[in-house]
């Protein structure tokens, strides 16, 4: 009986990595149970994104540029945002289901396990269509002119920071459920804002509202800073993006933990899927 002695941090980290890796494999296995559905969702999403690329190609062939953004700039945004969005939802597929899970009282399963509730919850599912987004992002960047090994590595690093920021942002919006009771509308609107702002050139928005992109709706760190860094092959951008992603993650985690104290559970019948 008792709490037992403290163990070295690296053992805890190793155990956490093993848990996350196993969870990811099990999630993928679960997604692959329905092969046809998996393929339709993956390729369907890639095709859906391609339709937007075609729209931009037609528009920019007539106008030349929009807000100073040429076709390759827009395509970069359409590469990094889907790649980051896809990675976020492939690894942490429950980020936009937190509200629903909390409302149904389904957090009990996670609270009964000896793992961090937030990490356990968000990583216990993969969104199949997100794999399509992720693949699409990498396909687009591979087709962009001027791609070099250095630029590709930078793209990968910025996809990681972008994914971390998206996980934090979506999770924070969903965690409002603890305080509002039902956060689905607020969270849905936030998702729309974040994606819409991220997928259009920054310069089309009024200067007065651009501060929003670097605070509440972090499109700046997901799309605009990466675009500038990619064009200039500027690795120093990571000195801004890495701390920003850590700060957003820490803030989002703190909000979830704060909300968790208000969790009231429930008794709705259901199974984990």
């Amino acid at each position, binding site marked *: *009986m*008792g*709490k*037992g002695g403290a163990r070295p941090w690296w053992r805890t980290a190793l*155990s956490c990595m*093993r*848990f996350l*890796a*196993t*969870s990811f494999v*099990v999630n993928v*296995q*679960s997604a692959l*149970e*329905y092969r046809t559905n998996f393929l339709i969702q993956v390729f369907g999403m890639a095709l859906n994104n391609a339709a937007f690329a075609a729209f931009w190609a037609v528009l920019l062939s007539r106008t030349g540029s929009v807000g100073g953004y040429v076709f390759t700039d827009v395509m970069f945004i359409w590469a990094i945002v889907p790649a980051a969005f896809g990675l976020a939802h492939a690894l942490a597929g429950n980020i936009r289901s937190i509200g629903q899970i909390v409302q149904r*009282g*389904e*957090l*009990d*399963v996670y*609270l*009964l*396990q*000896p*793992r*961090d509730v937030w990490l*356990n919850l968000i990583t216990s599912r993969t969104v199949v269509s997100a794999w399509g987004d992720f693949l699409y992002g990498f396909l687009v960047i591979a087709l962009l002119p001027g791609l070099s090994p250095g630029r590709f590595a930078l793209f990968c690093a910025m996809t990681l920071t972008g994914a971390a920021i998206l996980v934090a942002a979506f999770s924070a919006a969903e965690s409002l459920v603890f305080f509002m009771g039902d956060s689905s509308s607020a969270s849905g609107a936030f998702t729309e804002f974040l994606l819409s702002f991220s997928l259009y050139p920054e310069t089309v928005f009024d200067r007065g509202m651009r501060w929003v992109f670097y605070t509440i709706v972090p499109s700046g760190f997901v799309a605009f800073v990466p675009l500038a860094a990619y064009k200039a092959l500027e690795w120093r951008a990571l000195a801004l993006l890495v701390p920003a992603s850590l700060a957003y993650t820490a803030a989002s985690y703190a909000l979830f933990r704060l909300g968790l*104290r208000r*969790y*009231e*559970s*429930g*008794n*709705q*019948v*259901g*199974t*984990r*899927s």
Partner: protein
Amino acid sequence: MAVISARGLGKTFRTKVKAEGFAASVRGLVRPVWRSIEAVRGIDLEVEEGEVLAFLGPNEAGKSTTIKMLTGILRPSLGSATVLGLDPSRDRVALARSIAAVFGQRSQLWFHLPPSDSFRLLGAVYEIDGRELVRRQGELVERFGIGDYMDVPVRKLSLGERVRCEFAASLLHAPRIIFLDEPTIGMDVVAKREIRGLLEEVNKRDRVTIFLTSHDIGDIEKVCKRAIIIHHGSIIVDESMKSLKHRAMSRKIVGVKYAAPARPDIPGLEPIKRTQDAVRYEVDTGRHRIEEVLRFLVAAGEVLDITVEDEPLENIIAGIFEGEDRGASLAAAGRAAAGTRTEAAPPPARDEGREA
């Protein structure tokens, strides 16, 4: 040695209330009205290591809320609890390594995957290394007879098969306490019997403490040694099953089947069921001697069959619940008659989202 201990443990939920109608909805938007609901009202309890405890109560009594406070899912509003020497809300992660919970209405198995995959993930969750995981899984598969289902997706298993796998999965990390909330809900009689047998075996063989909540009296009669009854958030009975069953001794159900139509008449006793050639009485042995009742019945006609049974445990427990409700109503009526200004006790937990 007590493995579960609670002192004045209570939980109050704050919930929004709204009168009927559109106008009330608009008013609620501007000035919402909140009400506090005491789901659990400062209970004390102790459970010894290796005990098999039935934690009973009608709907909304506070059973699930209590279990959730003891497992670290909910934070108590007042009082304190220790489980295996740990504070469930503060030491949730450490406690989760030594306890398990099986909720009949919830699953910890992946719906689309075979149980073997869920076992693998649970191994990672509970930090059981590869070789040890294989050994424990093999042992549980054999004990629970689930070898045939381990590679079948959970969605294709029957309820009984799923709960057996669920139960085996919950034992993978060798917990010292298992909390079960309606583990046999929706099961047929055969599956229920199997689960009860497994519970008994786990308790006897591994000396695992079992904390069982169930509306199925069969679960309680077959498995438990002690019963705690909670009603309106307070503990009203805490005694051994033996003693609870002893209450049944004072009430007998007497049934007679006659060879021809007969109409026995026992002074001061009304039958609970009567047909042309059969009759059943509920006899309070404190008021009527059973020997006398039998004499009247035998004298009424040629007897084909006669049975004398204890009152079912279900009736006893229902009687306790009803007695509490009647007591509360009478007390309130008494206060009203006496003209006191004491407000009626706050309503019990009525939030349907919280209690099964």
